């Protein structure tokens, strides 16, 4: 049994390392880093960005993702909201939007708050039936 723990940990570490080195090669769209390093070669290609709304005018919205600012046509959103944008990259960091999903700032924050409540619920329920024995490094059921 004691052999299993390092083996499993090694397997997990290998999986994470594999993901770290291969992640970008398997993404369907160019990364922000790639776009920033060679912008012109990606003009006309589909991109997917996740960023924060940095500015809104009557005609456009500015989306900040990484160190880049992209412009899209106006959508009903506010500064600080998070957005997922799928679209075609044009000149001057303009994206012709094909699909967009907006997370309102408060709504995004509330998701974390709800998750904290869920975590507390789980901790309460779990610790009601299990306790951790540090010496044995095992959980034992409460009687």
């Amino acid at each position, binding site marked *: 049994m004691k052999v299993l723990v390092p083996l499993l940990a090694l397997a997990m570490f290998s*999986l994470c390392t594999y993901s770290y080195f291969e992640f970008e090669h398997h993404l*369907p769209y160019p990364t922000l880093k790639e776009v920033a390093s060679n912008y012109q070669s990606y003009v006309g290609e589909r991109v*997917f960005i996740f960023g924060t709304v940095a500015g809104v005018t009557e005609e456009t919205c500015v989306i900040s993702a990484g160190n880049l600012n992209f412009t899209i046509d106006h959508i009903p959103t506010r500064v600080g909201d998070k957005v997922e944008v799928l679209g075609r990259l044009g000149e001057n960091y303009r994206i012709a939007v094909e699909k967009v999903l907006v997370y309102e700032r408060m709504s995004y924050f509330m998701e974390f708050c709800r998750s904290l409540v869920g975590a507390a*619920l789980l901790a309460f329920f779990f610790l009601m*039936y299990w306790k951790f024995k540090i010496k044995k490094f095992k959980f034992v059921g409460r009687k």
Partner: protein
Amino acid sequence: MDWIAHVLTPWIGCKLLQLKLRKLMDREIALVMLGAILPDIVALNYLLQALGIGAERFIMPFHTPVGAALVAAMISLMFPKWKRAFFLLTVGFATHFALDSLLLHADGGMALLFPFNWRWGFQLGLIPPDSWIPAIITIIIAACLLSALTKSAICALRIPHLTKSRAAHVSASFCVPSFRKTANRRRAPSTECRD
């Protein structure tokens, strides 16, 4: 999807299953619930991002079935019956992926076949990730179920012809352990709950 929905969904499922499967104990349900949030270890990435560390690429495998299974295997070794614990944690993280498959994204999604295939997707696109709906639905169902179980546990204690073991089982299906202690006590018959 938030953790309220992730934690309560397996609780609801297990509690309903418990009515049929007497062997399923509350402490085992707690393990299923724990398993249900295992893939969201990736949420650590938010914390790391706040510290200026970009670990998304490294941490991604935790939100895949293979990665979650490895984590479940490691955690299960910390429990007395590790095979049973692993099974319960696996059921838990399966519910996680089932719920996450309902989510809506502009594109992409989960890489369920990682590391064998890097296909991103597997989303039905029904619910926005920040939606309150799953949490509200699960809270309502859980509250109704808890109320029904509480009522049946109280009734079980009052019905005279109920055997000791049956009474203990019904009261054990209610989540508060103190009820178990009182379950074995025979109470005077009451006409209120016989219907």
